[in-house]
Structure formats: C-alpha cells, structure tokens
C-alpha cells in the first residue's frame, strides 16, 4: 500500500525496511494498512465459517456437520470474527488510523508506539480465538457467551477460557486505540481547524472512540467475572452461590449495545465524506450531523435491555426501554435525510464509492426499520432469538456497514496505494454483491416471522424453502467477494497511477492535498487552517 516514497526526507531517518518496518511500525499509514490486511484475512476466515453453516442449512436434515458443538463453535467464531476482527479493524484501525491524522493535518497519531501495540494485540487476539475454536471442544456459546452455557459445568474445556482471553486482548487493543484517537483529535488538529470544522469522518471516529472507552471496560469486567467463576470458585453468575446469570446479560449488553454503534458510526462518517464528494456539495446540516452522532452515542448507553425483553422484566421497565430505543431512530433519521438533502441539487457522480454509499443509505434504512419493529417488547416476544433478529442485524452490519467499508475502500484506495481500481470490475462487484447479500438475508425475515429459531443446525421441513434461497445468496456473495479480492490484487499490481486528487472539486478534505500514494511522512509542517471558509 503506502510505498514509502517520501517526497522529502529532510534529516529524518530512512523509512524502515523489511520485517522491522511492520513489526516495529510507528507510522499511522503502515499501521492502518496492517489493520486493513488483518480485516481482509479475518473476513475470509469468518466468511468461510458462515459458508459452512449455510451449506448445512441449505436443506433440512443434517448433511455435513453432525458435531453440533462444532456447529455452535462455527456460529460463535463467525460472530466474534466479523465484529471484532473485520468491521472494527477495517474502519477504526484501518481508515481511522490512515485518515484521521491526514484529515486534521497532524503528522501522526498522538502515541505512535501505543498504536503499534494496539495492532499487534489484535493480531494476537485473532490467533488466540482461532486456537480457542479447536481447544477441547471450543466455545459453542454464541458471541453473547451467556452463562450457564458458558460456565464450567457446561463448557468444561479450555475453549471458553481462551476465548475470554482473546476478547481481553482485543478489548485492550480497542481501549488503547480509543485513547490514541481521542487524544489525537482533541489535541493535534492543525492551527485554525476548530472542532466545528473537522470533517464528519473525524467526528464519527471521535464519538466511536468515546463509546469504546466507556463500553469495552464493562465487557472486560464481565469477562473477568466469568473467568473467575469458571476457574477460581467465584459465583458471580452461579445461582447456588448467590449469583445471577442475568447479571451477565446486563453487563454484556451494556457493552453490546454501544458496540453496535461503535460499528456503525464510522460507517456514517465514511458515507458523509463519500456523498459529499460525489455530489460536489458540502454535507447538509453539518452541526446536526455531528450532534446526531453524539446523541446516538449517548442514547446508545441507556437502551441495553432491549436485548433482554424475555427475561422477566416488569412491564414498566420494558416500556422505558421500548421508548428509549425508539428515540434513537430520531437522530438516525436526521442523518439519513441530511444525506439525501446533500445529494439534492448536487452534481452526482455515480462512481463506485458513490454506488456503495447510496446503497448504504437504502439498505441501512431497511435494516433500521426492522430494528424499530424489534424495539417493541410485545413484538419481540415473538421475534426474540429468531431469524428475524438475524436478518435485522445482518442488514445493518453485514450489508450496510460492509457497504460503507467498500465505499471507503474504493474512495481511498487511490490515496493509499497510488493506483486506480479496475472500474468495470468494481461495478460488477457492486451489483453481484448487492444481489448476493439481499438473496442471502431478505428470506431470513420470512423465516423469523414464521418462527425459525436462530443458532440451530437443523429445522422443521416447513422452513426449507427460504433456507435454500438464503444459502444460494451465500454462494453468490462468496463469488462476489472472490471478485473483490481479485480487484484488490489487480489494483495493487497493475492499476494505473492516480492523481493526488482523483475525485476533483468534491473532495475537499486535507488528505486530497497530499500526494497519491500518501508519502510515509505527511504534514511534518502543520498546514495553516486559519482561513474563512464554510465548515466541511
């Protein structure tokens, strides 16, 4: 990616070479690149896991996976890998590291060495998770790891313990990364670049980092409690000792709900940048967009029990969580309308990043409205733990968030590598992926409404039809993804060189003022941003 050809070295040490460049990296671009590579590798692993169980689910009866513990481990691994090792590293570690310093005119992150630790902790966490899957049966608990299934009585092997430790490392990686990003954004903006003139992508990363800082430690505490319950005789979640499994659910979802906003907020930021660039207009309502993200982040902390409607809450408790959850739709809707208003009256350029951004807007709304349905405690009695929930979160995460990642990839790959992606193949990728993921996940709404539970390897014959369709969608998505990796390879090896600003007048943020590929060191002299112009 960043080919390290710095335009001016003046007095600096040479760009490191060989393995030291990567293992000891303190460069935000190189670390960003490593995160993106890790994300791509993890996407293959996590995707293959889901392909295996989609193969099994294609027809009723058991065809390939008769070891149901292994089936559950696949489901669990798929969830953890996609959340912690695909989406978060790509958007926060990858695009965040690459473009936050560039967009604020900073030479690097506040703590370059801690940046390095964050990355390699995550790499270690990935290895641990994969080892856990094959250790003494592995963690067949789902990504939610509820006791008592995850307790020592029902998972006596070390798989769950290794999984807990993997999450501890990933959590530490994220907390350190969050501290780095917040400090960078608060303290290292170029002179004249006030908070209210920062690009919206930077705002999205700032809010995301704050959520990480507040939510991940709660997960860490809960994981530690589970670890000691399993191994050191504590009874946090053990009824016999006065504990309560429901406490795990509260702690997990207090982390888990902000986690999904951690996943989607950077996506919102990317979409703002892309829609603005390809409409050749600044985003409509900059302040509303920034404060909507803050509102979403804040409210996201007080809705966690909408994941727990069936545990026996009092009706008034459920009523509160229903209302608070519905409230989040308001700032989210403001963002959707603002993106549309940005496009309205703009000069739209339907390049591939814009296709994915427009796809995001529509598909995120689709996933969002099923979320509104689920927010209702009464409806959720029927929907809880069915494929309706699976369809909902895959629309917002596996479709919308991935669309934002692709949009960011196609938007920024020229800046990162200096090369143009193959335009025709990129459009083929867009359309095949669109068809694939919709064929894959739309039928799951119907399965859920018909009552098909989630996390099962086999099902009654009545569910056969839509399961077959959904599995076909999985194979189409797989083919599209294979095409995507070919596109990546083709771009890096033989794409033609791009201009510093390949997108023209619509691209107004600072990264487009440096060369493509971006030099190893940028903004060693801080740009003067003290000019009177409208906020980005």
């Amino acid at each position, binding site marked *: 990616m960043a080919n390290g050809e710095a335009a001016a070295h003046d007095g600096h040490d040479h760009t490191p070479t060989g393995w030291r460049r990567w293992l000891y990296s303190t460069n935000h671009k190189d670390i960003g690149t490593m995160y993106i590579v890790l994300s791509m590798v993890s996407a293959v692993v996590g995707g293959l896991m889901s392909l295996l169980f989609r193969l099994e689910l294609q027809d009723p009866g058991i065809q390939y996976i008769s070891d149901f513990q292994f089936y559950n481990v696949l489901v669990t691994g798929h969830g953890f890998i996609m959340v912690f090792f695909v989406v978060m590293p790509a958007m926060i570690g990858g695009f965040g590291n690459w473009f936050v310093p560039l967009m604020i005119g900073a030479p690097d992150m506040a*703590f370059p060495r801690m940046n390095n630790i964050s990355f390699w902790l995550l790499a270690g966490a990935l290895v641990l998770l994969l080892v856990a899957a094959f250790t003494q049966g592995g963690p067949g608990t789902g990504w939610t790891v509820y006791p008592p299934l995850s307790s020592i009585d029902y998972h006596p092997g070390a798989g769950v313990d290794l999984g807990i430790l993997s999450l501890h490392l990933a959590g530490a990686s994220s907390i350190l990364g969050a*501290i780095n990003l917040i400090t960078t954004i608060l*303290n290292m903006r170029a002179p004249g670049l006030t908070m209210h003139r920062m690009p919206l992508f930077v705002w999205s990363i700032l809010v995301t980092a704050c959520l990480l800082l507040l*939510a991940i430690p709660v997960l860490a505490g809960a994981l530690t*409690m589970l670890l000691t319950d399993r191994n050191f005789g504590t009874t946090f979640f053990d009824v016999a000792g006065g504990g309560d499994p*429901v406490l795990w659910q*509260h702690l997990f979802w207090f982390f888990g709900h902000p986690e999904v906003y951690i996943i989607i907020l950077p996506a919102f930021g990317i979409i703002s940048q892309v829609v603005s660039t390809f409409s050749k207009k600044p985003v409509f309502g900059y302040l509303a967009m920034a404060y909507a993200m803050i509102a979403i982040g804040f409210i996201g902390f007080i809705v966690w029990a909408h994941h727990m409607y069936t545990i*026996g809450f009092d009706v008034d408790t459920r009523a509160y969580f229903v209302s608070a959850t519905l409230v989040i739709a308001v700032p989210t809707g403001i963002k959707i309308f603002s993106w549309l208003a940005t496009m309205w009256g703009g000069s739209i350029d339907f390049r591939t990043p814009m296709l994915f951004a427009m796809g995001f807007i529509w598909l995120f709304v689709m996933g969002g409205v099923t979320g509104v349905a689920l927010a209702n405690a009464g409806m959720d009695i029927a929907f809880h733990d069915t494929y309706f929930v699976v369809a909902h979160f895959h629309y917002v995460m596996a479709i919308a968030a991935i669309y934002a990642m692709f949009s960011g990839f196609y938007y920024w790959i020229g800046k990162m590598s200096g090369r143009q992606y193959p335009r025709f193949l990129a459009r083929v990728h867009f359309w095949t992926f669109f068809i694939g993921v919709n064929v894959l996940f739309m039928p799951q709404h119907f399965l859920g409404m018909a009552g098909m539970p989630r996390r099962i390897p086999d099902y009654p014959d009545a569910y056969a039809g839509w399961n077959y369709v959904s599995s076909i969608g999985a194979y189409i998505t797989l083919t599209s993804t294979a095409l995507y990796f070919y596109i990546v390879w083709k771009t890096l090896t033989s794409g033609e060189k791009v201009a510093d600003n390949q997108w023209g007048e619509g691209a107004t943020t600072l990264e487009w003022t440096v060369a493509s590929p971006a030099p190893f060191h940028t903004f060693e002299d801080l740009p003067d941003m003290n000019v009177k112009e409208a906020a980005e």
Partner: protein
Amino acid sequence: MTKVRSRNSRTAVFLFAIAGGMVGLAFASVPLYQLFCQVTGSGGTPKVASGPPATVSANTITVRFDANVNPALAWTFRPGQKEITVKGGVPVEAVYLARNMSGVATVGTSIFNVTPFKAARYFSKIDCFCFTEQRLVPGEEATLGVQFFVDPEIFTDPNTRDVKTITLSYTFFSAPGDKDSEPAEPAKQARTPGGDKLKS
C-alpha cells in the same frame, strides 16, 4: 517535553482513568444489582423485615409453597403445607421439610423467589431458614421454618390489586465449596422462575 506532548500525556492519563472507572463500575454492579433487586423487589426478590408491620388489613391473600432440589444434592425437600390464606399485615409461620437421603453429612443452602414478580415488594420475611446454611447428617429430617407477612399495601397498589395468589419458591443446592457432598453427576443448576434469586 513539548507543549503538545505534555497535553497529550495528561489527556491520556485522564482517559485511562475513565476506562479504569468503568471497570470499577462493572464490578460495583454486583452489589448494586443485588441492592437494586432488594429495594425494588425486581425479579421476584422479597423483602426482609425485622418485625411485623404497623398496619393490618382484613383482606386476605393466598400464599402457596413450592420446593425444589438441585439434582446434585441428594435430599428430599417439600413444603409442610400446600397453601395458607393470610390476612394483610399478620405474620404467619410456614414450614418446609428437608431430609438427607444420602450416606454422607451434607450442607445445603437455599435460594428463594416469589411470583408474581410484582408482588415481591409486598412480601416480607421476618425469619427464614434460608438465611443460614443447613447441615443434615445421613437420614436426618429437619423442619425448617419461615416467618413472613404480606404488606397490606398490596391491596391498594393499582399494579397489584389483581393478585390473589403469591407463590413462595425455594431451591436447595449443595453449599458451594462443601467437601462432604460429592455430586453424583455434573451439577445442574435448577432454574426457578424469574432469574433473580439473591440471598439476603
């Protein structure tokens, strides 16, 4: 240190402190959660009272008694009476009978819960065998008493006016860390209704 770097360090320390504070809050949630359930009666957690209430009521309510044993504990455990009709505010004594059917002396602890959950805040125990561990030698049968009353406010609260029956449920477990009792099979946790079963 340059100005930016010292500002960065101070910001980082502040942010680390926040992260540390959140870990602390996670662990603080353990006693806080227990306290919350005790104060609000959430999840069927009954109250503990030191003595009878000030008011009584002529209204009556039926209290039924449920008993369960975790399979790892080789005891029988049953209520001494199926149900009692109580007047609001009047303390009543009920008994449970537990017998050790195994060949070793065992210590058991019990957890308890009340349904419907919303009635729990009006159900107060004055004395209960569940407050202490119970040790039974092989073959020993114990009569375990619980003294309780139902707060008369249950009749006037609009949320609970419809409650005619309250069920008090206990589950006995082998005391954690008890070396005497050997589980015959991997200990399976019996789930009583609800999920919030916290010992006082």
